[in-house]
C-alpha cells in the first residue's frame, strides 16, 4: 500500500481536529531557522523506526538545526524535514486504526488498537494492545470508546482524541492510521507527536487528491511503463488495466516473456503454469479484463510490448472472456502493425467471436513481421508454453510506422481517439463498408464524410478500422495516442 509520511498525515488529522505537536515542514533549508529546541524528522514515506536510524534528531542550537536539516534532506527518498517543537511529555500512549476483513462469524469493519505504553519499541509490546472493533458505517462515540479503555486519567478526553482519529481514518478511507506516541503533556492534554498513514490509490477522491499526492521518490515505486498504464486507465477508466513490471532481470538462459493476461484468474493460470519452471521468466504481471475497450487493449499492449528484454508475448484470457475477442484481435493486429519493435506472439482467444478473432489473425499473419500462433480456449497455458521457445526471438525486429495522413473526421473523448478519413482511398465517394459494420451505429455517412451519430456511442472496438483495412480500401484509420514513449 502507498504510505503517507508524517507531514502529510498530520494534515489529515488536523482536518478532523486531532491535536498535534506544533511543527513546520521544510523541503529546503529555510532563511530563518526554527527556534531551538526542535526535533528534526526526515519525511520518508513508509519509513519506520526512524529514531534508531538517525532520521530523527534533537537539535538544541542553530548550528545543530542547520546541519541536521542539511543532512536529513540529503537522505534517500526524503521529501523534507519536519521541525517539531520539543514538548514536555509525561506519559506516552499508542493508537492505530486498521481494517478488519471479517470472516464467516464476524462482520468486517475497523479495529482500533490502543496501548497505554506507547513510544519506541511498541512492536515488542503488541501483546499489550487493546483491540476495539468498530463499524465504519456507524463509528463509535467518545463515550463508547471510553467505556472500552482501561482506567486512565482524563479518559474521556483521550476517547475524544481517538474518536477524531477514527473519523480521520474513515473520512479519508485509509487502510492504516497510526499515532505513536500520543503524548500526555504536563497540563494533562493529549497531542499526537508522530503519525503515519497508508492508503489505497483508488480510495482517494478527486477532492482529496492533493493531500495524497505521491511524489516520484515516494514509497510508490512505479516504473515509467506502470505510470503510463495508470494514465491510460485515467483517460479510459472502463475495464481493468493492470500492469506491474518485474523488478528483477531475466536470468541467463530463460525465455523472457511479456504477458498480456485476462483477469486475475488468467494471471493465476499463468502463474500456476510457470511458477515451478526455471526456463521461463515473466517480465510483468498483467490483467486486462472487465470489458475494456479495444482502444485500451491496444494501448496497454503497446506498453507491454515495450519491455526491451521481451522475447515473446503471450496473450491469454482465462479461456472465456466476455470481452469480444474480435475487438481484442483487432487491438493485437494494430499493436503489431504500429509498434517499432513488434514481438512474436502466442495468442489464445476464447469468448464471443473467438472464431472471427482467429480468422483475422490467420488472415493477417503472413504480412506480419513476426510469427504469431493462435490457440482456441480448450488449449490451456500449460500446453501453450511448450511453443514459447520455437517463436521467441533474441533479436527484436525493427520497423517504422508513420500514420497515413488524412482528414481528421472527428475526435472521441472517451475512450480517446482520432478518427481519420482518407478520401483518396474512396474516389467514388460511396459509403465505406466500415460505416455499416459499426456495432453501435455511431459512425454515419453524411454528405460524403464520416461523422459521429450524436444518438449513439463509440465503444472503442476497432471494428471499423479493421473492416476498413481488410475488406475496404483503408478509408478510415484510428489514431490512438499513448501517454509517453513506447517502443
Amino acid at each position, binding site marked *: 500500500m502507498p504510505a503517507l509520511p508524517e507531514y502529510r498525515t498530520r494534515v489529515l488529522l488536523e482536518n478532523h481536529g486531532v491535536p498535534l505537536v506544533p511543527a513546520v515542514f521544510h523541503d529546503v533549508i529555510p532563511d530563518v531557522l526554527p527556534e531551538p529546541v526542535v526535533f528534526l524528522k526526515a519525511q520518508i514515506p513508509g519509513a519506520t523506526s526512524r529514531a534508531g536510524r538517525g532520521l530523527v534528531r534533537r537539535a538544541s542550537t542553530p548550528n545543530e538545526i542547520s546541519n541536521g536539516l542539511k543532512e536529513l534532506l540529503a537522505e534517500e527518498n526524503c521529501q523534507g524535514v519536519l521541525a517539531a517543537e520539543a514538548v514536555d511529555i509525561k506519559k506516552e500512549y499508542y493508537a492505530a486504526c486498521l481494517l478488519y476483513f471479517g470472516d464467516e462469524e464476524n*462482520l468486517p469493519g475497523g479495529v482500533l488498537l490502543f496501548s497505554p505504553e506507547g513510544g519506541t519499541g511498541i512492536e515488542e509490546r503488541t501483546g499489550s494492545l487493546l483491540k476495539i472493533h468498530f463499524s465504519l458505517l456507524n463509528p463509535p462515540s467518545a463515550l463508547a470508546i471510553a467505556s472500552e479503555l482501561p482506567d486512565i486519567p482524563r479518559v474521556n478526553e483521550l476517547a475524544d482524541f481517538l474518536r477524531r482519529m477514527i473519523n480521520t481514518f474513515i473520512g479519508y478511507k485509509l487502510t492504516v492510521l497510526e499515532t505513536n506516541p500520543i503524548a500526555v503533556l504536563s497540563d494533562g492534554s493529549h497531542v499526537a507527536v508522530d503519525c503515519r498513514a497508508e492508503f489505497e490509490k483508488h480510495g482517494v477522491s478527486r477532492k482529496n487528491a492533493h493531500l495524497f499526492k505521491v511524489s516520484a521518490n515516494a514509497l510508490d515505486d512505479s516504473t515509467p511503463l506502470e505510470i503510463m498504464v495508470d494514465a491510460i486507465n485515467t483517460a479510459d477508466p472502463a475495464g481493468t488495466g493492470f500492469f506491474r513490471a518485474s523488478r528483477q532481470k531475466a536470468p541467463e538462459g530463460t525465455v523472457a516473456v511479456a504477458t498480456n493476461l485476462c483477469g486475475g*484468474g488468467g494471471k493465476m493460470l499463468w502463474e*500456476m503454469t510457470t511458477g515451478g519452471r526455471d526456463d521461463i521468466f515473466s517480465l510483468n504481471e498483467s490483467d486486462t479484463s472487465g470489458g475494456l475497450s479495444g482502444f485500451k487493449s491496444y494501448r496497454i499492449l503497446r506498453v507491454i510490448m515495450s519491455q526491451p528484454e521481451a522475447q515473446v508475448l503471450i496473450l491469454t484470457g482465462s479461456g472465456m472472456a466476455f470481452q469480444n475477442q474480435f475487438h481484442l484481435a483487432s487491438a493485437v493486429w494494430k499493436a503489431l502493425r504500429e509498434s517499432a519493435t513488434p514481438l512474436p506472439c502466442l495468442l489464445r482467444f476464447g469468448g464471443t467471436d473467438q472464431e472471427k478473432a482467429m480468422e483475422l489473425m490467420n488472415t493477417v499473419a503472413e504480412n506480419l513481421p513476426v510469427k504469431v500462433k493462435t490457440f482456441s480456449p480448450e488449449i490451456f497455458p500449460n500446453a501453450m508454453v511448450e511453443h514459447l521457445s520455437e517463436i521467441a526471438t533474441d533479436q527484436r525486429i525493427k520497423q517504422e510506422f508513420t500514420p497515413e495522413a488524412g482528414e481528421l473526421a472527428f475526435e472521441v473523448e472517451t475512450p480517446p481517439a482520432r478518427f481519420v478519413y482518407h478520401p483518396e482511398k474512396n474516389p467514388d465517394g460511396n459509403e465505406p463498408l466500415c460505416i455499416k459494420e459499426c456495432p453501435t451505429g455511431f459512425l454515419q455517412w453524411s454528405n460524403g464524410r464520416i461523422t459521429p451519430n450524436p444518438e449513439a456511442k463509440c465503444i472503442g472496438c476497432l471494428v471499423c478500422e479493421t473492416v476498413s483495412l481488410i475488406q475496404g480500401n483503408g478509408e478510415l484509420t484510428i489514431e490512438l495516442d499513448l501517454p509517453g514513449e513506447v517502443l
Partner: protein
Amino acid sequence: MPGILKYLCGIDSPRVLVFGITGRQGRSRSRLMKGFGTEIVAGCTPGKGGQEVDGVPVYNTAAEAVSAHRSINSAVFFVPAGAIAKAAFDAMDAGISFLVLTADGVATQDSIKIKEKAHETGAMCLGPNTVGMLDTDGYLFGLIGGKASWAKKNYLPGKVGVISRSGGLSQLLAAFHCRHNLPGPRSDGSFGPLWGEDYPGLSAVLCVGGDPVPGITLLDAARAFEADPRTEVMAIYAETGTTQENDLARAISNGEIKKPVVVFLGGKFTEAGVAQSHAGAMIRNKSETYQAKKEALEKAGAIVVDRPDSVFAAIAEFLK
C-alpha cells in the same frame, strides 16, 4: 424450476433495476442481459430521470423506481467504483434485496460499508469486482456471457453449480461443462474426451469477485447450490487470500455442505504480502496460503486440483 436466486436470497423471478443504464456499458450490457432473458424493469441514473433507454424507463433514485415498479427485487450496477457505495446504499434503502456490483477498484472501506449495510437490511451483494452471475433458468446479471446468442449457445442447463473468485474462470468452468466431447486430462493419465454428447451442463454460475471483502462468499454460494435441486456437484475456483476457503472447508467438514465439491485452487506460487491483480488474493497470514487452504479443503473431503482442465474429469467422475 426456480433458479439459484431462490436459494440465495429468496427471489423466484428476478426483476431488475439497472444502475448506470444511460452509460456506455450500462446500455450495452442491459441489451445483452435482456437478450438472454433477464427481465429489466427500470434504470437508474441520478439526473437522468424521465429518459428511456431502449424502452426502459429511467429514474433518478432507486426509491422512485421501486415506487413506480413494485416488482423490482434486484439490481445490477454499471457505475464507477467511486460511486458504487452511494448507489448500493440507495438500492438497499429502497428495499432491493439482491445486488450485483461489477465495479473493479472499489475502496476496501466502501466494500466493508456495503457489507455492513447489507447485514443491516438483509440484502445480498454479489461483488464488488464480479463478472456477475448466470442461471440457465434464463437470466443473467452483469458482464458474464458476452453476446446473448453466444451465452445461449455456451451455457446450457445441467447438473453443475459453478462458483468462482475470477470472472474469466467463472465463464470457463461454466461453459466447458456444457461442451460435447470436451477433451482434457483424464484421471487415468490419458488425454481425450471426458464425456460424449451428454455433457454435464450447468445449473448456475456465481462469480463472488476478486476483492478482499466480497459480499456473497464462496460459502454463501455453496449453501445456495446445496439447496438447489438441479445441482448435483459444485465446481469452484478458489485462491489465496481471505478466509473464504477455510470457511467453506469447515462447512463441508461439519456436514452443512454435503454435495461433492471440486476446487481448482490457484496461488501455489503466490508470495505472502505481495499485492495481486485480484486484491483479495493477497496473503495476509498463514491460514490464507495455498498450502493451508489445500490442506483444509482436502481434509474436509473436497477434491482439490491445481490445473483448471483437471476440474472436468473430477466432475465427470462424480456424475458417473
